């Protein structure tokens, strides 16, 4: 079984630019989550999709972040325009029902 895959693994952009992160969940997993770890802090919840619907987006920091999951398969997380404080590791996770979350390797975003 293929795991959760994220692309790219690392992205370096300048402040003000746009970046789009992609997550492919495990096939058949309806639940898809985005989490983020900024330097020195805990991993924090961003949002949760059930299929293509946003179940909970209470963790999204502001309206510069836009997440989509068209068709209920892969998801994208776009940051526009990026700010320095957006730097961190963005994790995607998926699960089926109440099973534990399976995490991807993360995308390390560096905003300079």
């Amino acid at each position, binding site marked *: 079984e293929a*795991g*959760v895959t994220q692309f790219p693994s690392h992205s370096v952009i300048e402040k003000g630019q746009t970046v789009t992160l992609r997550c492919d969940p495990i096939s058949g997993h309806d*639940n898809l*989550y985005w*989490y983020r770890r900024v330097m020195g*802090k*805990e*991993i*924090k*919840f961003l949002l*949760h999709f059930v299929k293509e619907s946003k*179940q*909970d987006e209470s*963790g999204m920091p502001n309206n510069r972040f836009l997440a989509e999951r068209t068709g209920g398969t892969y998801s994208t997380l776009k940051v526009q325009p990026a700010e320095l404080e957006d730097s961190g590791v963005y*994790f995607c996770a998926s*699960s089926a029902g*109440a099973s*534990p*979350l*399976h*995490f*991807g*390797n*993360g995308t390390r975003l560096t905003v300079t």
Partner: protein
Amino acid sequence: EDKVVQSPLSLVVHEGDTVTLNCSYEVTNFRSLLWYKQEKKAPTFLFMLTSSGIEKKSGRLSSILDKKELFSILNITATQTGDSAVYLCAVVRGSARQLTFGSGTQLTVLP
């Protein structure tokens, strides 16, 4: 505010030692507690605990939950260098089943 606190933040031991990692929590609408091991990349799932007093075991790793005192411990016996990693504790809360993470314990096992 919901919080999950792990201790110690960092631990250095030698191969063969036994370690105990701690996780305490204060969250609303608790559902379960998870332990993950993170080496270089993705956190990998170790245990899910939902009931008090029932030990989960996998090889040299074991974990138990105390829902009255709001904590969990992760034990690793006869540690090996391959156990070196960050161990993350996370609590599942609410109907959305989102996770609240602790800051992790960095375990280093020296040969």
